[in-house]
C-alpha cells in the first residue's frame, strides 16, 4: 500500500538495500509552518484512494523502467497532519549515488504532478484553504 493513515515508518522504507547497493537516498516531505506568506498550523491530506494507489503503482513501474538499477519505495500519508510531521517519503537505493539521487528526485516530482492527493491548509485564525499549485508557487516545494 502506498497510502497510509498512520505515521510513515521511515525505517521500514529503508529495509530495501541489497548487498550490491552502495547508496540509499531518502526524501521526506514535512509539513511546514507557512506557505505563501500564511502561517500554517496543520494540513488535511485527502486522496482519491484507489486511484492514488493505482497511480503510484504506475509511477513505480515507470521509474523502474527509467532507472533500472534503482529500487524505489514510497509512501504518502493522508489525514490531518501537524507541522513537522512527514507527509511523504521516498527511498531510492542503487549501487551508486547518482542514480539514487536522480530517481528519488524524479519520484517526488512525479508524485506531486499526477497522484490524486489534495491538501487543505489550516491557519491560526481558524481559516483554511485548498492548496492549488497551479496558481501559487507552493507547488515547487518541498
Amino acid at each position, binding site marked *: 500500500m502506498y497510502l497510509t493513515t498512520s505515521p510513515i515508518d521511515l525505517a521500514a522504507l529503508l529495509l530495501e538495500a541489497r548487498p550490491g547497493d552502495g547508496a540509499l537516498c531518502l526524501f521526506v516531505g514535512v509539513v511546514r509552518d507557512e506557505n505563501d506568506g500564511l502561517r500554517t498550523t496543520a494540513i488535511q491530506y485527502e486522496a482519491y484512494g484507489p*486511484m492514488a494507489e493505482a497511480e503510484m503503482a504506475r509511477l513505480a513501474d515507470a521509474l523502474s523502467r527509467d532507472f533500472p538499477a534503482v529500487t524505489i519505495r514510497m509512501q504518502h500519508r493522508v489525514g490531518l497532519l501537524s507541522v513537522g510531521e512527514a507527509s511523504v517519503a521516498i527511498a531510492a537505493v542503487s549501487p551508486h549515488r547518482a542514480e539514487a539521487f536522480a530517481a528519488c528526485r524524479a519520484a517526488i516530482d512525479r508524485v506531486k504532478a499526477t497522484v*490524486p492527493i489534495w491538501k487543505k491548509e489550516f491557519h491560526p485564525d481558524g481559516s483554511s484553504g*485548498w492548496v492549488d499549485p497551479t496558481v501559487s508557487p507552493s507547488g515547487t516545494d518541498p
Partner: protein
Amino acid sequence: MRIRLLHFASFREAIGRDEESRDIADGTLVSELWAVLGGEVPLFRRFPKPPPAAVNREYVSADTVLRDGDEVAFLPPVAGG
C-alpha cells in the same frame, strides 16, 4: 446509462457531496459531462476547459466516451507531497 461520479477536495465542497449516481445519454463525452456540472456549480464555470478527469481510476482525455457503469471523477489541481 448510469455512471458513478466522485467528487474530491474543493470540488466536493463546491458540489456538496462526495459521490452520486447519474443517468446520462449514451455516448456522452467527458467534456460534455463537465459542461452539465458547470450548469449546476458556479465554481466549475470558471474553468476555461475541463480539468483533468479520471475514468475507472485512470487519467483520460476530455474527448473520452463514457460507458455504462463507469466510475468518473474530475480532479482539482493535485497537491500531494
